[in-house]
């Protein structure tokens, strides 16, 4: 089967700085891949490249069958990216934010409600303005927006940051559900014990390259 992500010598540049310096990576359907590595190693850029945001400067990259050199915009509606920023509108309520981001990809009202429930936001918090939330509650809201997008490839940048214990449990359960529904997930995280238990494979990013691969590749590693 065609891998979900295939990078070959991928170079990406921010300004004149090579954030990715020739990355090679293959990710198969149903995997939960953990990216680890020091700050500035290129984890975020790798996720942004896979999301079709960062242009490919050299090398080859294919995500969900789309060639990122020629058509990186095509991949965007099929992946979901949770970056450092939450992408939330501070003056809107939690429910309004999730509904907005859900409807950008045509999610129905029931799907929006379901994702609010999934992240434990359906009750008291639903009608609270995002500006009044704590950092962890904002993160939950951003995750709910992501759930509502029903992406084929999930790209998560430090998703655990700021979440409390129940939030982390909900996140992990959500990710497992998503993979069993056929999604593929790449997580960048410093919380190794947490994310490591979840991941089917761990890779090390350093100096804009993929350094080492541990664990077992392939979808059988998920269960």
């Amino acid at each position: 089967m065609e891998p979900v992500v295939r990078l070959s010598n991928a170079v990406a540049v921010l300004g004149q700085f090579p954030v990715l310096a020739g990355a090679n990576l293959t990710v198969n359907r149903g995997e939960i891949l953990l990216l680890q590595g020091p700050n500035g190693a290129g984890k975020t850029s790798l996720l942004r490249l896979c999301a079709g945001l960062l242009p490919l400067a050299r090398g080859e990259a294919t995500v969900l069958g789309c060639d990122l050199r020629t058509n990186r915009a095509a991949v965007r509606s099929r992946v979901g990216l949770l970056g450092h920023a939450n992408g939330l509108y501070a003056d809107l309520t939690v429910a309004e934010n999730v509904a907005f981001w859900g409807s950008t990809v045509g999610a129905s009202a029931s799907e929006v409600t379901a994702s609010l429930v999934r992240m434990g936001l359906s009750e008291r918090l639903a009608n609270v303005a995002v500006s009044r939330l704590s950092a962890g509650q904002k993160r939950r809201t951003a995750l709910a927006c992501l759930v509502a997008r029903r992406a084929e490839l999930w790209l998560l940048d430090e998703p655990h940051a700021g979440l409390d214990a129940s939030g982390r449990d909900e996140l992990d359960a959500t990710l497992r559900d998503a993979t069993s529904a056929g999604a593929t997930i790449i997580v960048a995280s410093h919380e190794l014990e947490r994310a490591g238990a979840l991941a089917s494979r761990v890779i090390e990013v350093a100096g804009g390259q993929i350094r080492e691969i541990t664990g077992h590749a392939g979808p059988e590693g998920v269960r």
Partner: protein
Amino acid sequence: MPTPKSPTPETSTPASAAPAGGASTGTAFTRAIGLATIIGMGALAVFGLFISPADVRQSDSVRILYIHVGTVWVAYVAFAVTALSSAAYLWKRTTSLTWDRFAGASAEIGVLFMALTLLAGSLWGRLSWGKFWVWDARVTSTAFMFITYIGYLAVRGLGGSHQQRARRSAVVALLAVLEIPLVHFSVKLWRGLHQDSSVADRTHVTLHGLMLFSLFVALVAFSLLYVWLLMHRQRVLAMQDALDDKGLDYALQQRRSEGDA
């Protein structure tokens, strides 16, 4: 307007853009053009200052026109080249950073000559109409063009990858093509409704045969100067881009060794 192409990696500079020897932007062709420019400018000085007669009404101030017409001609040509090169960059079948560099180099020259045009024009205006500035449609839209292309150059300087710079500035250049005629037309309509007459009625210059020929010499000399500047500047920009790419190779090595430490 053609739909912009999603950028394809183009890091190598075409050989034609970076001449052998690396440090020079001159070729036999540009040297010939340069020589012709010097001769043309010399001829213009002789014709403009000595051979051509003073105007019946404007006396010697008419000689400023040889500069003024030459610089405004270069500025208009330069902005037209910027627009065409930008369109060529955005058109899928001809997309190349060379077009982007031509657009940028030409706009820089255009802004310079537009500044000279406004300067020479207002000096001449002071001498022949007693005022530095008139609210004529042509004068006003020329000033707008000047500001617009200063903005274009600011957009070029925003940073990002070469492709991002090229795409963004090409779109801005084509938007300027929408803007300039609208400004010109609206100022024209505006002045048309007022009693004030336009420049053309009050600045009637009776062109003597020799004056016409001097004007022709000016156009040729300034056109040669434009071509000479454009070739050199475009090559300097190509070298800068190539240097960035070289820098990228080095930065890539540095970046790769980061993880080893």
